């Protein structure tokens, strides 16, 4: 029984992993763009971005998934996005907002003097960002980002509200067949994934330990 259950759970794990990695792929750069917007010197843009971030961070991800999937059809009678796509969009937007706040904290914690030192050495803004501040920002954001990654692993289970068949769904489907343990067994899969992430993040922290 263990092997067929494991195989079917791995199928759900596939969807979970796909959602996890695609969310990171899109949300990490989008979060950076949003963080620049939230620090913009152009006040209306800054307010707009900060309001959006507040709404997204302040409301449940589950509702956001429901709105993005059902919203177009309910409000405008438009055709819906494919379920997985809708889930991905909700996750990317939600996590990009969380990431943007982490980026913002990281960027703002780099001392002003670092920018100024770059400026007086004749560096361009992109050069200062990529050659001077970026690595310092990364060093500062690795621990809070790591927390978000682990949270994301577990949040992926929310997409089953719009019938995206991820890991927990697969585990739950056994309940109807009278088997309870597969649901609890899914926790092992999450533990393995978050365990691997924890190791990778620790290694990264160590790698960045060479400077202060």
């Amino acid at each position, binding site marked *: 029984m263990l092997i067929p259950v494991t195989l079917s759970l791995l199928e759900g794990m596939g969807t979970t992993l796909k959602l996890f990695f695609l969310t990171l792929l899109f949300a990490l750069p989008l979060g950076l763009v949003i963080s620049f917007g939230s620090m913009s010197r152009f006040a209306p843009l800054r307010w707009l971005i900060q309001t959006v971030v507040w709404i997204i961070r302040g409301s449940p991800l589950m509702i956001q998934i429901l709105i993005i999937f059902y919203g177009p059809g309910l409000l405008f009678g438009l055709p819906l996005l494919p379920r997985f796509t809708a889930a991905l969009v909700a996750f990317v937007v939600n996590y990009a907002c969380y990431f943007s706040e982490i980026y913002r904290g990281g960027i703002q914690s780099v001392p002003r*003097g670092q920018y*100024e*030192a770059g*400026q007086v*050495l*004749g*560096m361009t803004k992109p050069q200062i960002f990529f050659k001077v501040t970026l690595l310092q920002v990364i060093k500062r954001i690795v621990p809070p980002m790591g927390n978000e990654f682990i949270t994301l692993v577990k949040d992926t289970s929310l997409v089953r509200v719009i019938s995206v068949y991820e890991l927990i769904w697969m585990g739950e489907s056994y309940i109807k067949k009278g088997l309870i343990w597969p649901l609890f067994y899914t926790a092992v899969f999450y533990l393995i994934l978050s365990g691997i992430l924890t190791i990778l993040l620790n290694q990264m922290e160590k790698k960045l330990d*060479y*400077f202060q």
Partner: protein
Amino acid sequence: MSILEVNHIEKHFGATRVLTDISFSLEQGQALSIIGSSGSGKTTLLRCLNFLERPDHGSIAVKGNVIFDANDPKTQLESEIRKKRLHFGLVFQNFNLFPQYTALQNVTLARELLAKERGGESKESIQQAGEELLVRMGLADRAGHFPHQLSGGQQQRVAIARALALHPDILCFDEPTSALDPELTGEVLRVIRSLAEQKTTMIIVTHEMAFARDVADQVIFMDSGVIVEQGAPGDVIDHPKEERTKQFLSRYAND
């Protein structure tokens, strides 16, 4: 012709006026010390020269070319400012070394970036020039160290090498020893003194009166954003004319 001419600089932060009608000039190979209590505007003046602040009035000319004129927007183009900055080098009070780079990388980074853009210099020759600079700073054996592995005095000497690497026309020091423990100020002052002996054009904002008198060809005393007195160190520091200068100097009489 003076290498630097500063004319009628004025700077406000909001409603506060921090610099009023600042004018002075500096000759090639000379060292200028700016003294004055904290809040007198001397750091702001240095920051104006390095385009970290933008004066509200006045103009700045280097080697006869006007590089900044508050009345002429053409002299304030963002794309031009970068190039103009290279006339000046700035050594910060807090060093502001890049923590993720070694001492040598700190010295060579900006020059390598410039060489990449403009072509010309090879990486090897930049590297070699950087190493030579560190030797001049007495840091030959510290090239591979990261800033946090260096003492404050060593860090500041790396910062001086970093500024020199770009061959600025005028090297500015913003209270270069204020963040250092007293026993470490000597090594930094020695380096600056030797630069003065090699006829490096310098502006030094400092609280070290004895040092200012020894090293400078010219001294400016500032108070409340205005130049109160300027001239040779023998005049300004040893025989001040103005009451405010005397008061200020009397606080350092025991040094």
